[in-house]
């Protein structure tokens, strides 16, 4: 074997580790070389084995690391050993772990911080926090909860929420169980029986990765004060609502934009809008007010009170037009709603009062006062005039009887008497209009009175009266003469205004006036009589003046007719109103209070006896007391003519003296006629008191030109038996005397 062959075999053995080592005879000259080569081959095999073991170990460790990271092992064919070593996976993974660990550290730091934050929140939050496990066992709670439910920290281990919160009293709704049922946060506001406080209880579940509830955090917020405040607000709201309901004023509240947010019942009634319909609408749409000037316009009022510098607004009188078109006079005030002084308004409050009735009353009062003062003047004039007329009429009456054989003189005297009678009627009208002129009332059914009065005035004219009088018309206590005069006046007016003639509607009905009616009358039962013409109508500027005396638009009128009507109706505690439209006609309405049942029965018992208008001669001894000489003289002559024996007195003192003298002498007067008022002397009112003391059976007649004096209407209350208004003619004087003397004798 030569050396080349030995080296060739050695290379082959090196590449084939399972083959046998070199074989050579020990005595071969290359035996030492062969031994050395075998040694090298064995060492090579050993080194190779070690290398494989090391790389295997590395691969094993790499796989272990890869598994930790969460991936599959490296496959040998993926990377050969050399690439593996070059790539340095362990280095890569180690460096990656450094990043992972750094990240974990950061995360841990953040968690620590978060834990501290949670703990701070846990303790500092305004509510009590209770953490429970899924079996209601207490895990932890904060200090607030401890104080809230007075929990003994040392004895709460192992307890459940039922032990420390409910304390055996099972609540109607258990927030924990409700949360479990729903699987989500459950909120409940409830009162706690244990400490009588209110809580808002918020129960929040904590779930694990499998969405199972493992814990619950229960937050208790004490809302007792809130509930009390709510209750106080509710009470306040109720009180406010009741106040708004009770007051007579309409109240409307708006938001900052002027849209309606609230209205009370009165506001609903006055505007005609229900709250439901009005809500959210502009207040100016609901409060339709007549604008007397630009500053009073609704928009302007709102601009002022809702501006940044709002002012309180007051509109003393304006007209409100309701949804249905009804007009009312209102007093309106508006104020801004501001939370704090100087802050911008958050809304406004409008308060308004219906002053229609008030205003009507005021107008009526002014008119009444005006007419009353004119009446005083008229009454004074009429009184003096009556005295003169008494003398004139009396003398004419006497003269006519003296000249009964002379036709020419009789005729002249008859004409003079007629003219004087007209003058008497005029003074009578003046007195009726004047203050007082107290009506002599009797209970009357007005049907006949209305029909007769109207027919009397319309007879011979172009108008025809159509009646519509209720069958069950209430009775009234009236002076028939006066009310008849009112109806006559109204029908005469209708006739005069309806120049072409036509129908005048006259009606009467029962009417009940209550406090809500816009009419200046005391609430109660009334009858309403109306006279409706289709004449020219009255211009609106005159409507206010037509009841004034001596105001007339007629060429021939003296302007007393409606004044008298007004005065008569006022004295009957009634009201006269007029509605008129030019070119359409006018309607006058009279309201007269209905008589009560008691009076009605009384009246039936005292049926009045009627007097006739004949001259009734008589006999007896009469005493006439009057300060006016002409009255004394004419009365004396008239009564003497009638057959009486007459004595005269100028005042009360003289009358007393003469009466006492006659009485004491056993020849008393059969009757006394006394003037009611004696200037600067004793009048009839005082004299009768003295005379009654002398003779309680005295038959006294009161006479006066002041028909307005209450004594004339209620003479019996003062001790008189009869009344004789001046001026009187012979017929009237004889009838009154006859009646007094007959009644007294019977």
């Amino acid at each position: 074997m030569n050396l080349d062959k030995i080296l060739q075999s050695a290379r082959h053995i090196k590449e084939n580790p399972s083959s046998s080592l070199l074989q050579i005879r020990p005595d071969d000259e290359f035996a030492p070389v062969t031994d050395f080569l075998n040694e090298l081959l064995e060492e090579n095999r050993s080194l190779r084995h070690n290398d494989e073991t090391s790389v295997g170990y590395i691969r094993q460790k790499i796989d272990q690391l890869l598994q930790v990271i969460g991936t599959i092992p490296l496959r040998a064919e993926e990377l050969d050993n050399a690439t593996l070593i070059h790539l340095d996976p362990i280095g890569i993974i180690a460096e990656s772990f450094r990043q992972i660990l750094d990240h974990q550290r950061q995360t841990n730091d953040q968690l620590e911080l978060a834990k501290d934050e949670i703990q701070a929140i846990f303790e500092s939050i305004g509510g009590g926090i209770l953490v429970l496990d899924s079996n209601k066992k207490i895990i932890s709670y904060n200090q607030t909860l401890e104080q809230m439910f007075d929990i003994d920290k040392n004895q709460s281990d192992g307890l459940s929420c039922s032990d420390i919160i409910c304390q055996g009293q099972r609540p109607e709704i258990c927030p924990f169980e409700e949360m479990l049922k729903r699987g989500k946060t459950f909120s409940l506001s409830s009162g706690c029986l244990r400490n009588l406080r209110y809580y808002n209880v918020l129960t929040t579940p904590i779930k694990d990765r499998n969405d199972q509830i493992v814990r619950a955090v229960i937050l208790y917020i004490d809302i007792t004060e809130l509930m009390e405040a709510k209750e106080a607000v509710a009470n306040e709201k109720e009180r406010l609502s009741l106040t708004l309901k009770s007051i007579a004023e309409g109240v409307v509240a708006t938001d900052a934009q002027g849209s309606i947010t609230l209205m009370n019942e009165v506001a609903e009634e006055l505007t005609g809008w229900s709250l439901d319909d009005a809500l959210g609408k502009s207040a100016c749409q609901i409060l339709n007010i007549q604008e007397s000037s630009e500053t009073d316009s609704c928009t302007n009022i709102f601009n002022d009170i809702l501006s940044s510098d709002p002012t309180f607004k007051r509109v003393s009188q304006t007209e409100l037009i309701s949804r249905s078109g009804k007009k009312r006079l209102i007093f309106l005030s508006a104020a801004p709603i501001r939370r704090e002084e100087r802050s911008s308004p958050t809304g406004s409050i409008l308060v308004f009062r219906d002053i229609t009735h008030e205003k009507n009353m005021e107008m009526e009062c002014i008119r009444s006062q005006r007419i009353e003062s004119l009446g005083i003047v008229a009454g004074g004039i009429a009184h003096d005039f009556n005295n003169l007329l008494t003398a004139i009429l009396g003398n004419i009456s006497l003269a006519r009887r003296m000249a009964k054989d002379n036709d020419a003189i009789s005729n002249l005297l008859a004409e003079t008497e007629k003219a004087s009678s007209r003058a008497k009627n005029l003074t009578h009208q003046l007195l009726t209009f004047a203050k007082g002129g107290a009506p002599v009332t009797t209970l009357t059914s007005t049907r006949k009175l209305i029909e007769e009065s109207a027919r009397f005035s319309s007879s011979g004219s172009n108008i025809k009266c159509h009646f519509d009088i209720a069958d069950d018309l209430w009775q009234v206590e009236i002076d028939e003469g006066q009310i008849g005069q009112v109806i006559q006046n109204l029908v005469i007016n209708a006739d005069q205004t309806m120049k072409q003639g036509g129908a005048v509607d006259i009606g009467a009905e029962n009417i009940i006036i209550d406090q809500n009616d816009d009419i200046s009358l005391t609430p109660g039962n009334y009858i309403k009589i109306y006279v409706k013409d289709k004449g020219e109508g009255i211009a609106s500027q005159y409507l206010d003046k037509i009841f004034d005396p001596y105001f007339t638009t007629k060429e021939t009128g003296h302007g007393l007719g409606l004044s008298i009507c007004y005065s008569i109706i006022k004295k009957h505690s009634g009201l006269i109103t007029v509605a008129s439209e030019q070119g359409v006609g006018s309607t006058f309405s009279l309201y007269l209070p209905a008589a009560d049942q008691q009076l009605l029965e009384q009246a039936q018992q005292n049926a009045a006896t009627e007097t006739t208008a004949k001259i009734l001669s008589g006999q007896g001894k009469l005493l006439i007391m009057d300060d006016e000489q002409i009255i004394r003289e004419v009365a004396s002559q008239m009564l003497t003519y009638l057959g009486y024996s007459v004595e005269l007195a100028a005042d009360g003192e003289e009358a007393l003296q003469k009466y006492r003298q006659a009485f004491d002498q056993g020849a008393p007067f059969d009757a006394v006629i006394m003037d009611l008022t004696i200037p600067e002397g004793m009048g009839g009112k005082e004299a009768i008191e003295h005379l009654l003391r002398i003779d309680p059976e005295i038959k006294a007649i009161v006479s006066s030109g002041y028909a307005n004096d209450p004594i004339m209407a209620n003479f019996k209350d003062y001790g008189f038996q009869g009344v004789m208004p001046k001026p009187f003619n012979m017929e009237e004087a004889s009838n009154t005397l006859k009646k007094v003397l007959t009644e007294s004798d019977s």
Partner: protein
Amino acid sequence: MSDQKIQETIAIDMRGQICPACLLVAMDTLNKHREALTKGLEKLCIITDNREATTTIPTTARNMGYSVTVTKIDSFYQICVGRFTPDK
């Protein structure tokens, strides 16, 4: 991706390679570019067709504190790693 700060993209196409080689390459890149990536100056976007890599790379990257998005594009996936708010 909505983060305006990311300017540079490190793009690696690893189609044809499988896990864990893909993961090792991703981790090696994340290690080497840690500073720029954590500051949000760079992001790493790997294209792979190995499905396992879409789980292993995101998991490891998230453990390191990075945000990850995985988008399927045609026949491969794009996995982007960086500091940003991942798209929902």
